[in-house]
């Protein structure tokens, strides 16, 4: 939704050479990586390394993002946001274009990665994301504009990285930038004050997003609609409790949500349950569904169900012969 003038002003063909006014560094544009509300990002060559350059005719937004990246750089051994390489201005056609140069994070975005490599990666990536968010929150920030497009999976080994710190806000202030679908205010489930719970809401929406790659529209909004959307996707059932907690701001920290997700996954791999869910032959569909609902019922029930299921299974095989 950038102004058309800005778009034209910052459109450059591959091969264009950028020389900074203050530091005289020389960058060669290789291609456009993407554009958004605040500017355009290019892949560029700097000596023998590839870098990403974000430019805008609005110097303020560049300065503001640079402030955040500088503060991230002080966090030791962290991978919060891309690392900052240079900040400068470029005078072209009598216009001053502010830009900053950052580490190029090569890889697909979150949803593309999941669709290429499989849903099995969702949990790993979300766990990585939650650790990063925890560090970021500890440093007094809230990421703000958390969405799949702003998450790149680099590697191998796969490692999730947040880009676009345009929405990153000091805790307690009003969120600078957000995207409706991932914003709790839009769903009527909280304020737009920068609090850790704001980011955790977005994490829950990102998980839901994996089952609704095209997202969905707000109808009634609120918890009722979101709960219903979760129920409609079997793959989301195992996260239902965690999602509802995060959507309602019940996790005090990213760490707490992370632990809960870890525990939930560990309990999922118990042998008894996997043996139940594996038998999905046609005549037993209703049985397995019941078994799912009564998950908490204990061993006796599980045993009985397996017996019934196996019986029906044999019966089914027998009738086929």
């Amino acid at each position, binding site marked *: 939704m950038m102004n058309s003038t800005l778009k034209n002003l910052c459109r450059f063909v591959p091969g264009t050479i950028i020389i900074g006014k203050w530091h005289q560094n020389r960058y060669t544009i290789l291609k456009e990586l993407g554009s958004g509300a605040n500017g355009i990002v290019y892949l560029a060559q700097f000596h023998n390394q590839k870098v990403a350059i974000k430019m805008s005719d609005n110097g*303020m937004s560049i300065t503001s993002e640079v402030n955040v990246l500088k503060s991230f750089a002080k966090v030791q051994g962290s991978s919060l946001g891309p690392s900052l390489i240079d900040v400068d201005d470029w005078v072209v056609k009598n216009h001053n274009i502010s830009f900053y140069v950052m580490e190029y994070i090569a890889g697909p975005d979150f949803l593309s990665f999941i669709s290429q490599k499989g849903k099995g990666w969702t949990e790993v990536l979300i766990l990585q994301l939650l650790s990063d968010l925890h560090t970021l929150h500890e440093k007094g920030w809230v990421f703000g504009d958390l969405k799949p497009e702003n998450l790149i999976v680099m590697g191998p080994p796969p490692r999730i990285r947040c880009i676009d710190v345009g929405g990153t806000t000091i805790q307690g202030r009003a969120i600078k930038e957000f995207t409706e679908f991932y914003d709790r205010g839009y769903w009527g489930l909280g304020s*737009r004050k920068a609090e850790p719970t704001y980011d955790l809401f977005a994490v829950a929406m990102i998980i839901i997003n994996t089952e609704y790659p095209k997202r969905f529209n707000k109808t009634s909004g609120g918890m009722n609609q979101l709960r219903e959307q979760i129920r409609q996707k079997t793959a989301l059932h195992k996260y239902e409790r965690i999602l509802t907690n995060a959507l309602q701001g019940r996790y005090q920290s990213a760490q707490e949500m992370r632990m809960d997700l870890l525990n939930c996954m560990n309990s999922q791999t118990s042998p008894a349950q996997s043996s139940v869910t594996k038998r999905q032959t046609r005549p037993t569909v209703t049985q397995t569904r019941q078994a799912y609902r009564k998950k908490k019922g204990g061993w006796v029930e599980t045993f009985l169900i397996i017996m019934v299921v196996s019986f029906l299974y044999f019966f089914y095989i027998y009738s086929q012969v």
Partner: protein
Amino acid sequence: MNPGTLKQILLITDGCSNQGEDPVAMAALARESGITVNVIGVMEQDTIDEQGMKEIEGIAMSGGGVSQVVYAQSLSQTVQMVTRKAMTQTLQGVVNRELQQILGGSKTVEDLPPEQRGEVMEVVDELGETVKLEVLVLVDTSASMKHKLPTVKEALLDLSLSLNARSGNNQFGVFVFPGKKNDVEKLLDWTPHLESLTSIFPKLTTGGITPTGPAIREALTYFKKKRSLRGLLSRDDEQYFEESM
């Protein structure tokens, strides 16, 4: 540093004015009285006509504000973005003037080396969070806008949500044009919350003419009225503000 209260007019329209004073001139008048005019053009599937586009850009330019043309669906995000952007722009202007006094000449933030801009930006950010804000919303309710009004209402509630997350004080007022009897009609008096719109908005009747210019003029006088009424109260506040900076 005391930037006082930021005053904005937010005009939501879908096209051309056809009655009364030139809205571009009225926007210039607003700017002279220290009020920024932002304009949001609401499109249907079809694009807005060129003349309407020109007017939208013209009003914002002479009103020292920001303009953006959008489809009705993305109105909410745009309304809050435009308002924020205009705030930052105004605050940057304030900070620039301050800098000029310190550094002399016509120096602005952009003339500083990138290393030194960070601190200036922090000041602008901080002010954006704490400054007092008055937004007068002017909604075009001419016939063509009729079915977009529910979306406009949503967008305004959303704006109130965004701005009320700040720690600074907000005041909103809502005018519609054309009104039932006059060119402009007051829908909602100055209030920190826009929620009360929910009950009033559906009752709107829409007319054929689009008196954008007179609407802006009327909005201006409304800011003045408020100032004289609350003169005593706000003086107290401002003193506090100065001390705290």
